[in-house]
């Protein structure tokens, strides 16, 4: 019997399919979405709401600051 030096002692190598790998991938997916959704949940900061409201001058005049100044 050959001596078995390299037991598969490491955690599943990346790219190798397997249950552990699937589990890791689902954790990564979960963390990624958690990180992302944390920001999404903050909603729209006022500065952007105001920016879009201000820039409702119609047409591609290239000078969106041009408005009648009416509210």
């Amino acid at each position, binding site marked *: 019997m050959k001596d078995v030096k390299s037991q598969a002692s490491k955690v599943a190598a990346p790219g190798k399919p397997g249950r552990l790998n699937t589990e890791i991938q689902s954790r990564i997916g979960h963390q990624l979405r958690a990180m992302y959704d944390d920001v999404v949940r903050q909603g729209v*900061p006022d500065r952007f709401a105001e920016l*879009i409201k201000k820039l409702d001058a*119609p047409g591609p005049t290239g000078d969106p600051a041009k408005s009648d100044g009416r509210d």
Partner: protein
Amino acid sequence: MPLTDSLRDDILASVPSLRAFAISLSGNGDRADDLVQETLLRALANIDSFQPGSNLPAWLFTILRNLFRSDYRKRRREVEDADGNYAKTLKTQPAQSAHLEFEEFRVALDKLPQDQREALILVGASGFSYEDAAAICGCAVGTIKSRVNRARSKLSALLYVDGADDFGPDDTVRAVIGGSGG
């Protein structure tokens, strides 16, 4: 198409995910918001080139991604203090251990090549199809798929496999793990 009220509402509704995308890309909250602002200005200035009925979020993400890229080329990563910066942008601070894991994840994400990071975020977090992500990044669908796969294996190596030496020193990750002060 002209900027109608409903289009404006739709743009506004995209802002939260644009911010999340920008923060995930840049790892820096302030810079991310500048990117979003520039994206909105550019979108509104070019609103005539938006095709009614086409995918508005994808259009906006494309603008943001291109802005980020040109910006990135100008100043490669001067954001060395990005650590912890991301957490500051969060209103709800996660609990300590969750926060640590979260920070570790962010550091690992930051180590991915930009191509892979953006592909992973678009598909894995923003929820775009491979096709949409490919359109946003201006590459083939197969390219996006392989970038996402490579991003996933690299992340799992960085986060879950001890001694993944092929991926270079992960001192930062170790520092985060070891430097918890606990």
